[in-house]
């Protein structure tokens, strides 16, 4: 009995301990729902949000699902967040419909909803009767286009040869737009480069590595790989080097994650279209503060992107470089 009592007491103490560790919320609090924290991109976003909150002098209440595929859990987190009555709900939905019930409740409570990193499909959102204060994110089509521009410049606009595109999670708008933007722009600026395969890598490094490996078997003369995020690009780079083609195949990613930057510096990854999530986080908080103060913010806020290469990194003169984390 004594041991049991001790255990029960321990549970109680632990819970209260958690409570004590929780930040005391004075002043306005913004709720932030992210996809996951187990990913450098979202980690940088979270840091930007923290920085933005410091600058704007507001509190942040931030939660994320365990994985960026767990749509239902994210909805639970979002619902729970509303129980705290935040001043604003900044959410990065796992897919275009999973958070809509929560956002609708937020609408009813008069809490403005921000679509962080443009995960919603405006048509679906409208049909569900959900109002979004503004959408903030990179222009994914433009980001894909920038990758194509870089490739044309890197290999020459007369370059010939097969190109592999590794898409994101099938059905995800972000990945689709990047792939689409890349393919459209590439046809314009370097018609000699042909996309021979465009396959979903599900944002996953090992899947991307397998895809790159398989494609290299079939197309040994592959000249370039465009992956819709850095995690996949890094997986693809490993396959390229393992096949003994390191340096011969241009590999471009998107996001500009810490690992991506490291890989570029190490001479493995050729380039990445950096998303600047850190900047996006700062910007999102700033804009939320603006609308709460009654100022107007465009319905779609585009955060700039930056093509990172070994050269750009070595020069270190680009003003956006300080937002690359």
């Amino acid at each position, binding site marked *: 009995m004594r041991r049991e009592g001790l255990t029960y007491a321990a549970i109680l103490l632990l819970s209260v301990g*958690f409570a004590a560790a929780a930040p005391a919320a004075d002043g306005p609090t913004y709720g932030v729902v992210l996809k996951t924290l187990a990913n450098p991109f979202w980690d940088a976003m979270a840091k930007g949000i923290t920085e933005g909150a410091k600058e704007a002098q507001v509190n942040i209440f931030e939660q*994320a699902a*365990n994985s960026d595929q767990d749509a239902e859990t994210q*909805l639970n987190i979002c619902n729970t967040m509303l129980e705290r009555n935040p001043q604003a709900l900044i959410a990065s939905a796992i897919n275009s*419909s999973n958070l809509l019930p929560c956002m609708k409740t937020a609408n009813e409570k008069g809490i403005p909803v921000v679509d962080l990193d443009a995960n919603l499909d405006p048509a679906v959102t409208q049909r569900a009767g959900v109002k979004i204060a503004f959408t903030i994110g990179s222009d994914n089509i433009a980001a894909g286009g920038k990758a194509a521009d870089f490739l044309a410049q890197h290999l020459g606009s007369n370059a010939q040869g097969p190109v592999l595109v590794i898409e994101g999670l*099938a059905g995800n708008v972000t990945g689709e737009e990047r792939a689409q933007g890349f393919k459209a722009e590439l046809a314009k600026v370097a018609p000699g480069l042909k996309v021979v395969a465009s396959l979903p890598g599900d944002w996953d490094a090992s899947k991307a590595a397998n895809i790159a490996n398989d494609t290299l078997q079939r197309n040994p003369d592959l000249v370039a790989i465009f992956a819709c995020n850095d995690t996949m690009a890094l997986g693809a780079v490993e396959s390229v080097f393992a096949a003994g083609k390191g340096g011969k195949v241009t590999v471009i990613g998107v996001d500009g994650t810490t690992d991506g930057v490291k890989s570029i510096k190490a001479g493995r990854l050729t380039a990445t279209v950096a998303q600047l999530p850190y900047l996006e986080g700062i910007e999102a908080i700033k804009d939320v503060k603006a609308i709460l103060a009654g100022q107007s913010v465009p319905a779609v806020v585009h955060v700039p992107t930056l093509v990172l290469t070994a050269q750009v990194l070595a020069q270190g003169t680009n003003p956006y470089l300080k937002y690359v984390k």
Partner: protein
Amino acid sequence: MNLASLAMRRPTALHSLGNMIRLESLVVLLLLILALSLASPYFLSVSNALNILLATSVIGILGFGATFVIAAAGIDLSVGSILGFGGVTGALAVNALNLPWPIGIMVSLLAGAFCGLVNGLLTTRARVPAFIVTLGMLGVARGAALVLTNGQPVYGLPGPMVWLGQGRPFGVPLPAVIFLGVAAITHFVLSRTRFGKYALVIGDNQNAARATGIHVERHLVALYTLSGFLAGLAGLVSAARVNSGDPTAGTGYELAAITAAILGGTNLFGGRASVVGTLIGALIMGVLQNGLNLLAVSSFYQQMAIGAVLVLAVWLDQLNRGRGRA
């Protein structure tokens, strides 16, 4: 004298309560609620209580299925995948085939039951261990869901189906109503009918079950089918909640369902099981997750907390039962 031994020695009301649930689980749940009420001003409210029930509903429904299977000393690792498969097939039926919504609901439920039936038949007729069969089904059902949808979520269900997941009659979320309804029915079946009793007896002593004329194989097939059916229902509710049949939905939920059952006092090796216990077990996980969310504790710590509580609850049970009768 501790609670469980008191319950065990005295054939009274407390005794039957102790048979129904593990009192430690209830104590852990109440302590959690008490602690979280002290810790967060947002925790103790009607709307948050409903929110917890809503968030727990899908895992809970899976947990009730797991309770029956584990009662009979079986294991079903495939329910998370069947959930995804059931949600996807129902969504495709109404979306791609343009069938009316009641058919969509039927398709989800039957797809789940069918997967369960296959599990049951392979386990009993082909004599492949349930662990292997359902591990195989975990892959097959998930793969089938991905193949059918090309890996893309199927967006947009008809109004009545969405209502199942998002409706709030009298302000109560419908998934919570379904959750508690299924709890009531399955509790009755497990504790009051021959079907439930035989599941327990099969898990307790399969030879005894056979000797007394229980059709063990037929019963096991029925139990796996029930587990699959409930996974199909959970898939329907889950899809309705997020208004899309997501082929990756429910990944890892099988372990959460088993955890709920074990937290509630169901013996992993069969013979002892309770639906009310599983309800409490699921609520322990739901309350913990909700409370930690309210306290802004990172999701990484939440997984640790749930793992710790599981081990703790079973350990308390061991302390109370004395010699490790797991």
